[in-house]
């Protein structure tokens, strides 16, 4: 039990299947097609900078809507009886287990022309093209990732000691004050971990925009997918930028999260 040896197979494995592939990406990002050192891939990558920023924007919007929808749900859940709480956790977990393409496809069926919602709206005399815009992409993302926001916030809230709330009541706080001074500050770590669980996959997701959005709405993940089969250097450069951007974001979130937890 005191030996480090058992970890050797994994350390070797990790070098081969995690570190070397990443190093390969870095090398490819800094070389041209002939294998010479070059900034060419990054120059090509900048061509997609507005797709990149729009992906971050869509991920940000999705994340924000997830927080707004998840927070009340997590709060209501944490105030329920324990049996009801477990039931809700199960109900929220079940859709998470469905394959993400099926969940997106379900929205394609719902929203397509002559689909159920379109038909219902046209009965009311509204003719709208529901698919193929940025709003639908955000909708799909929110549907995809909402459980990943509800569960961490709920976990943190369910651990809040009831005595704290009672103490605040005894000291004369009304329910708004209790929320502002007790429940919200204590739930921030849950929000932070929810953001990391939603934002990272949302910003780098692919196919969601291809299924639900228009041609204008493709995201950086779709670009990486499309470009990697033909131009691996530019693909590597975009992947590297995405990876570093998300890493920086996670570090910021971490610092922010820790500080909030202390104060």
């Amino acid at each position, binding site marked *: 039990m005191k030996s480090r040896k058992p970890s050797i197979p994994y350390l070797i494995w990790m070098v081969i*299947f995690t570190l070397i592939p990443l190093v390969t990406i870095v090398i490819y990002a800094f070389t041209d097609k002939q294998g010479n050192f070059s900034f060419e891939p990054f120059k090509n990558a900048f061509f997609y900078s507005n797709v990149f920023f729009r992906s971050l924007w869509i991920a940000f919007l999705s994340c924000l809507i997830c927080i707004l929808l998840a927070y009340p749900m997590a709060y209501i859940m944490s105030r329920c009886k324990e049996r009801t709480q477990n039931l809700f956790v199960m*109900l929220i977990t079940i859709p998470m287990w469905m394959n993400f393409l099926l969940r997106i496809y379900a929205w394609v*069926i719902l929203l397509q022309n002559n689909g159920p919602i379109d038909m219902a709206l046209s009965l009311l005399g509204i003719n709208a093209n529901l698919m193929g815009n940025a709003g639908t992409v955000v909708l799909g993302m929110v549907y995809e990732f909402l459980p990943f926001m509800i569960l961490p916030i709920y976990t943190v809230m369910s651990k809040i000691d009831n005595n704290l709330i009672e103490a605040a009541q005894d000291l004369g706080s009304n329910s708004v004050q209790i929320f502002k001074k007790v429940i919200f500050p204590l739930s921030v770590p849950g929000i932070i971990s929810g953001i990391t669980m939603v934002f990272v996959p949302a910003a780098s997701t692919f196919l969601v925009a291809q299924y639900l959005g228009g041609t204008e709405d493709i995201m950086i993940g779709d670009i990486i997918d499309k470009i990697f089969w033909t131009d691996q250097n530019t693909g590597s450069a975009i992947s590297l930028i995405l990876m570093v951007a998300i890493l920086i974001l996670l570090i910021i979130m971490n610092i922010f999260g820790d500080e909030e937890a202390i104060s």
Partner: protein
Amino acid sequence: MKKKNIASKIYVALLMLFLYMPIAVLIFFSFNDGKTTVWKGFTLKWYVELFNDNAIMQSLYNTLIIAVLASVFATVLGTMAAIGISNFKGFKRTAIQNASNIPIINPEIVTGVSLMLMFTLLGVAFNFEMGFWTVLLAHISFCTPYVILSVMPRIRRMDSHIYEAALDLGCNQWQAFTKVVIHEIMPGIISGFLLSFTYSLDDFVITYFTRGSKFQTLPIQIYTMTHKRISPKINALSALLFVTILVIMIAINIKDRKSAKAKGLE
């Protein structure tokens, strides 16, 4: 207080509707005797077609084989790694743990393309094509960190004296490990295994990039079917997957409730 209660009940109901309506619609149209979303009468023919589709059955088989092999291998590799890593101290330990977390933190698509790039280069050098083996290797690589993450806290919480006690009572190191240590960390090993198994079953992105041109898993099959929108067979498949998940979740819940009760009685 009453008004608030009703408001929160409505909110919960709407949220559940949002979560389940799309799945319900998918299942509803699996019984539709027509290819579009116009109701043409009840049928089970899509289910029959689904079971007669060899490609889908083969990909289901592939998915299960990969999930079993990857999760077993990742569990062994990860448990050994967790034991070894827990004996590192200070900077080295932080460095190893951070490196090990890379596949968890990194966007899946980056993990996928980086592995694809390496496998392509190796494939050219050693003359092989991506397929079953590359998918298996990739799955083991992204599953193992989850095993380490679930075993590590168990090792930390374990009282190291019981290991020493086993040695004092005449066990050799291997016996002390198999008779004492492994029982202490078992819950972590099991949850690591289950996590690996479900992640492997459900993985699309990394499989998509490492599968080559011929190897199919169920998520890849789902991709092909939803992309081309050819047949409501996909709806039938969704319905069956949903029922499977539902049954498993209810079984887990009942088991949890029973064990909670048993604990209460003790």
